[in-house]
């Protein structure tokens, strides 16, 4: 009986076996890296309707975050300021700037500007902004050095694993609000951070929850 397959076919099972393993590892790696929020979300920097520069306002001019984002310490939601807040200064400064045309229109018409949201959490996750600030977690921990960004971008993955990392080990992100503001972008953990964190945790009775219902209520 004639042979159905030529001799080189004998090598195919080995090629397939190794190819299968290699493809598996490769596919896993691709999903692992490119599917991660570290890749898909970090660095998200949409173009905003008005070229507002945080570097200029919060950095060079040294305005506190809370001047505009006034509700961050008292509300679940961190607010975007109304354009009337902008006009507090810009009714006197750069009153003719073309870049500010939208802001002036909005302040006059009471129609808010549609800023593009950068830091998005899923609907099914409950997040309270004020709780985190009261615990002493600074803006920097989640938002990065906004004072150096002309256009704000996402610096952290905001994935569930990332949330849990800090909930499990909050020590390096807790500030003693008696000596530093929560908005201070230059703060770095002092040498005795471990001690401070330990004291803060027991004083404020901090107990970051890790159960499902804490965030998925």
């Amino acid at each position: 009986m004639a042979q159905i397959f030529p001799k080189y076919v004998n090598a195919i099972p080995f090629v397939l076996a190794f190819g299968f393993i290699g493809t598996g590892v490769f596919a896993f790696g691709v999903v692992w890296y490119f599917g991660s929020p570290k890749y898909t979300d970090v660095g998200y920097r949409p173009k905003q309707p008005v070229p507002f520069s945080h570097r200029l306002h919060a950095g060079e001019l040294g305005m506190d975050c809370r001047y505009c984002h006034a509700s961050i310490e008292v509300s679940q939601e961190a607010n975007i300021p109304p354009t009337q807040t902008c006009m507090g200064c810009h009714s006197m400064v750069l009153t003719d700037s073309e870049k500010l045309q939208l802001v002036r229109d909005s302040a006059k018409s009471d129609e808010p500007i549609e800023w593009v949201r950068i830091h998005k959490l899923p609907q099914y996750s409950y997040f309270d902004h004020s709780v985190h600030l009261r615990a002493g977690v600074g803006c920097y921990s989640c938002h990065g050095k906004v004072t150096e960004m002309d256009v704000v971008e996402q610096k952290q993955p905001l994935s569930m694993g990332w949330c849990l990392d800090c909930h499990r080990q909050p020590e390096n992100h807790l500030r003693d609000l008696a000596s530093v503001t929560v908005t201070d972008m230059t703060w770095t953990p002092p040498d005795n951070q471990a001690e401070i964190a330990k004291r803060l945790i027991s004083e404020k009775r901090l107990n970051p929850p890790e159960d499902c219902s804490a965030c998925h209520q």
Partner: protein
Amino acid sequence: MSSTADSTTVRPPLISGNQTFSTITQRISEIVEIEVQKTPKAWFIAFGISSSLAGGMGLMIAYLLWEGTGIWGLNQPAGWGWAIVNFVFWVGIGHAGTLISAILFLFRQKWRTSINRFAEAMTIFAVICAGMFPGIHVGRAWVAYWMFPLPNQMDIWPNFRSPLLWDVFAVSTYFTVSCLFWYVGLIPDLATLRDRAKSGIRKVLLGIAALGWRGSNRQWSNYEKAYLILAGLATPLVLSVHTVVSFDFAVGIVPGWHTTIFPPYFVAGAIFSGFAMVMTLAVIARWIYKLEDFITMRHLENMNKIMLLTGMLVGYAYACEFFISWYGGNPYEQSIFINRATGPYAWAYWTMVSCNVLSPQIFWFKKCRTSIPVMFVVSILINIGMWFERFVITVTSLSQDYLPSSWGYYIPTVYDVGIFIGSFGLFLTLFLLFLRFLPMIAIAEVKGVIPEADPHHYDH
């Protein structure tokens, strides 16, 4: 000599009709080798019906994924409904295939050779149907991978103390080993088909599937070893898989579930239902393909005996549950069992008892045990009864547990029923494809049990 004679001195033949090596090859191979036009009409009709049912199920599942599990009859308190019932039902069905192929192999029960191939196929298809239900019953099939311990960006990890996770491992191991076992057994037969193939493409495809089998002594020796090892691996699975499935219930504290009898009770029930399904399929396939010489009355009778035995084991378990709930003095247990027999689900309970405990008793009589119509009807009754057993366990306990204020009644919707019927469609579609394209009887193994295989016949 009759193939069902109970002689202690002479073994009745396993294969009748004076078969030789070549007639066996011819009879079994020709079923899968005939041209498309000559496929039996019954096959086309059955395939049309079952694949339509499977397609209908596909649409219903699509709607389920779109809309959510609200389209089912699930309510508070019955959060587990037909999806779980069907899962346990189908996993159970699979067990007979593994018992026939692995345990009967280790016990050198030669009569298994005529039925092991399609019993194993049935196992695989049943596990496919079963595996579908846990995937869809949470309503969010796109996160079904959460069932597996895969490292992920959410830092979530399955709970290793939960029997639901053990179940994932049990069923996926079971599926893997069943597939391997089935495929290894198929290799020599695929090579037979390859050698008989006329067309080039058929030669190539079967050649690839046969993995270069030439039938040399060395290959046979390796094959036998591999088969034995796989049988050894599959044997504990017959007991462990349904044990773990029973833990899904028994580890919970719901009255009627939290009992230590569940593992053996579930395993006996699984083998019972599986043999019933093998019987249903064997009777039909034997009739359509005229395989009376291969699946003889002796095979059928042996299976009926196993059904009689396992049916009584299951009956014992039902009785034992009642006894223990009385003897244990736990009022919640007592109430759930009294409710099962007399409460709103009494109709389901008594359907279960009459199908599972009473109907197989007819097999005490040899006349009934060897009558095709009787065994066909009883096997269908057992299938029905075993489905109701899972329904009774799952739904009655949930509907009426500790808190009478939240008792409820579970009413299935058209989607519950449709998906269940559709799973039969899927099962039969796969089975019919198997009958049409792969040898349904293990050619090489059957040759080993005819007298020609042993020239010194009975002369030890």
